[in-house]
């Protein structure tokens, strides 16, 4: 449900970019939503597509990169992959993990058309 708010935030950022550097349409929007960012990518895509008609995002291709989760394992003193929150360290099986990657939720870039 919060993906709709996030999509609204993305649209606002796109509109702010257009105010600073005018363009008429976005042909491709590239986002990054890490596996540990707390975002359901399908819902985010759906929300963006629902919001897009009549905006700068109308008809835009939406690419969402999903960086894998990473965490620092206190017991192994090493960076380990983390598939989801609550999953154990793949090396030691422990849970003393501090996520260090895959928590990003960012707009990377826009490919825009000027006319």
């Amino acid at each position, binding site marked *: *449900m*919060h993906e709709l*708010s*996030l999509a609204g*935030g*993305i649209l*606002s*950022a796109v509109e702010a*970019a257009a105010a600073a*550097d005018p*363009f008429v349409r976005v*042909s491709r929007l590239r*986002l990054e939503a890490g596996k540990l960012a*707390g*975002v359901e990518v399908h819902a985010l895509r759906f929300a963006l597509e629902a919001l897009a008609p009549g905006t700068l995002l109308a008809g835009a291709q939406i690419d969402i990169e999903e960086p894998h989760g990473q965490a620092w394992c*206190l*017991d192994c003193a090493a960076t380990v992959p983390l598939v*989801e*929150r*609550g999953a*154990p360290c793949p090396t030691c099986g422990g*849970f*003393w*993990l501090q*996520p260090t990657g895959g928590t*990003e*939720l*960012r*707009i*990377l*870039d*826009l*490919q*825009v*058309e*000027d*006319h």
Partner: protein
Amino acid sequence: MCVVCGCGTGHSHEQHPNNESTTDSDVRVDATGDLHYGAGEARVSVPGLSQARTIRIEQDVLGENDRHAARNRENFIAHGVLALNLVSSPGSGKTTLLCATLLALRERRAGLPIAVIEGDQQTRNDAERIRATGVPAIQINTGKGCHLDARMITEAYARLPLHDALHAAGHEHHHPKAPLLSNHHHHAAHDHHAQGAGEPAGILFIENVGNLVCPALWDLGEAGKVAILSVTEGEDKPLKYPDMFAAAKLMILNKIDLLPHLDFDVQRCLDYAHQVNPQLQIIQLSARDGTGLDAWLDWLLAGAPESDRKAARIAALEAELAALKAPAKEA
């Protein structure tokens, strides 16, 4: 002349058919044999003449909210206000817990300024329950929204009498460097507190919309999120909603007076909670019979201190390491 393809007609480039042949990466040939340079991706076009170009943004989607949250946090810290964001599923007993907490705080610290922000989709019922305890409360109805955001807190906080109450209680503070809320003017010189150490000058409870998913992402400027889980909900909720329990500083296991009637496995629940957040502090409580309320109040009046579980764990590991090194030295 068209700056995209150089042809003389005022055609639209959206009309170019998709089944054109391609000679190399920079040129596209359409059905009539015309060549189209730079009609495609920005990376293959001539700078300044491109139809498509790329704007790098590299911006956090929640950046705007986070900026508001940072201003709220700065304001709370400057005034010594302990702001807590209470999150849970609907029906966990959040409002009942809050009412019991307010009454108990009144008894322990009669002069301590307290205020409540109540978030719900609809109705003023919860704010009215809080006001019945004599504590000022403001209701935020989010309509279709599933969470509170930092801007709502800025607005609501400005309408609460907490700030005036702090000054009436003799609170003195310094002006923070950056300007805060537009409607927040101090005319008197005063000394601000530093938060985190010791008893807060005031407490702001923010009861978020009953939802264990969405509020996890929205920072409101709070000192910490308090996740409330009741024993009627199932012990695996921390695993089912890991983002929220990972974001929380404290978990309150509520309604423990009902445990004799349930199959709820407390230890398993605590293990699951620590699985998603090894730093999470946990208080077991019953808002109805008052069990655990003192521990919760102690935590509040200590200014929501950080967990020392990690420090304890590090100490244990260091001891283990020292034990392993000792025979190596002898060898």
